[in-house]
């Protein structure tokens, strides 16, 4: 529309200077060619869409079939069992549950949304603290052999300990279930980050360090320009593993500590014999875990060279 109006203006204007007309004509030409360019990719998309549809079919059909078979199997199993609810019953219950995810009837009866957010918050704090301490310690272990020698027996001893074994210590020290749960998350998610970061530092090619030596870079420049970028992919792997562990552990920790959270909610619904809700919780935990993983994969991809 704008192009046409300019065109008219040029024609209507009886005494435009030559340059002006030329300028306008040029503008119109540019506008037209841009329009053409914009059209071509559109056509391409339409042409592609046939093969894209085929591709989509190949990509989406197998998982859809798998999920469908899973649900059928589940329904058959539920028919045989008296206590296990089927997919339909669970779905109806889920619709009801998610119609009001954020209700609040006192500390022991809150909506599923609150429970989920509480769990995520615990994971966030425990994991965040673990990253804050684990990553710098990992750098130190990787960079200084002496420090590595100092810490390696302690790490080898503590790393295989089941996360929940730390819960009594947390309860004893903090005298409260909330920080004790966070403590369990912290101690179980610190190892993958620490160890991966340390491994990343030791894996830095000697060539890069030779460059640093020839340039006589300062420790700070070595850290920001060489160590940190070189270790980042390793570090991100550690972060990804850690958050997976943290999300696994939070359910178990909350079952023991109580309070508001998805783990405690599962336990509570078991006491109420509300099996639909337990199944729903399992799906929620799975989906949230999957989303956390995918999100971190997305971030990690940005740091690959």
């Amino acid at each position, binding site marked *: 529309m704008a192009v046409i109006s300019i065109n008219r203006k040029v024609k209507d204007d009886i005494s435009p200077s030559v340059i002006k007309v030329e300028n306008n004509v040029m503008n119109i030409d540019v506008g037209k060619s841009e329009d053409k360019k914009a059209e071509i990719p559109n056509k391409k998309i339409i042409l592609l869409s046939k093969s894209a549809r085929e591709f989509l079919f190949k990509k989406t059909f197998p998982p859809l079939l798998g999920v469908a078979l899973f649900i059928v199997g589940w329904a058959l199993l539920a028919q045989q069992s008296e206590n296990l609810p089927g997919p339909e019953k669970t779905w109806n219950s889920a619709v009801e549950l998610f119609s009001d995810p954020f209700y609040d009837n006192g500390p022991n009866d809150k909506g599923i949304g609150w429970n989920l957010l509480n769990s995520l918050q615990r994971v966030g704090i425990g994991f965040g603290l673990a990253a804050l301490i684990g990553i710098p310690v990992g750098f130190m272990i990787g960079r200084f052999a002496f420090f590595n020698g100092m810490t390696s027996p302690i790490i080898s001893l503590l790393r295989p300990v089941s996360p929940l074994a730390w819960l009594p210590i947390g309860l004893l020290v903090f005298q409260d279930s909330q920080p004790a749960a966070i403590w369990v998350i912290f101690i179980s998610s610190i190892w993958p980050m620490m160890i991966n970061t340390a491994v990343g530092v030791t894996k830095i090619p000697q060539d890069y360090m030779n460059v640093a030596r*020839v340039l006589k870079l300062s420790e700070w420049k070595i850290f920001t320009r060489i160590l940190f970028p070189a270790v980042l992919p390793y570090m991100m792997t550690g972060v990804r593993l850690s958050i997976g562990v943290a999300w696994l552990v939070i359910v178990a920790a909350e079952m023991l500590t109580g309070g508001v959270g998805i783990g405690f909610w599962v336990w509570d619904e078991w006491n109420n014999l509300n099996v639909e809700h337990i199944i729903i919780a399992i799906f929620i935990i799975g989906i949230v875990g999957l989303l956390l993983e995918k999100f971190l994969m997305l971030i990690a991809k940005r740091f690959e060279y």
Partner: protein
Amino acid sequence: MSKYVHVENVKVVFETKNGSFTAITDIDLSVQQGEFISIIGHSGCGKSTLLNLVAGLIEPTEGALFCSGREIDGPGPERAVVFQNHSLLPWLTCFGNVYLAVERVFSRKEDKASLKKRTNDALELVGLSHATHKLPHEISGGMKQRVGIARALSMQPKVLLLDEPFGALDALTRANLQDELMRIVAASGTTSIMVTHDVDEAVLLSDRIVMMTNGPSATIGEILNVNLPRPRNRLALVENTEYTHLRSEVLKFLYERQAKKAA
């Protein structure tokens, strides 16, 4: 100034699991300012060890090394190294890789604009102005090595050390880069020491060729003066009898006197 880089009675012994290993011994070498020296020898003859000594990346077990009258004590930007495998930092662009070096050497005396100009000038010198903002994995092997050369030269080093700089490149790219290196070194007058195993490369580029005996306990076997006039043209040299003679001298040294027993 006749002994700009001076290597005095140097011996390097590496401690290994199977006892000590003498890599090089009795090395005496003086390099004049502005001279281009090649070190040639069979693999394992310690030629890279000698270069790393001058770079300061390793220390001699015995003897001493000097550069412009001062003892070499550790690596430093006045002895820039072009590494065999380019050693660019993959997370920095071509510009970033060169700028890191420029910044280190000149940031105390010069402002940012001047540092950027130095970086761009260095990249222009090696013909890479168009690839300034590309990452190393986006450019070819030859271009990466150009960036490596630009990084080394941007520091205005007293000595340019090249460790088989073109070893990993195909023959055509190698020839191109040799010609460019000749042009750049001639223009800047930088003292250069290059490790190579390519006879033609050594004769084409050098003022003197240091030929090393086989290791272990390798030492300098012979030093060959290359008195070919500069600027040198690789095509014209093919017909040059002096060139052919020098080339066969090096070949004779390598394959007759220092013939490697079948490895």
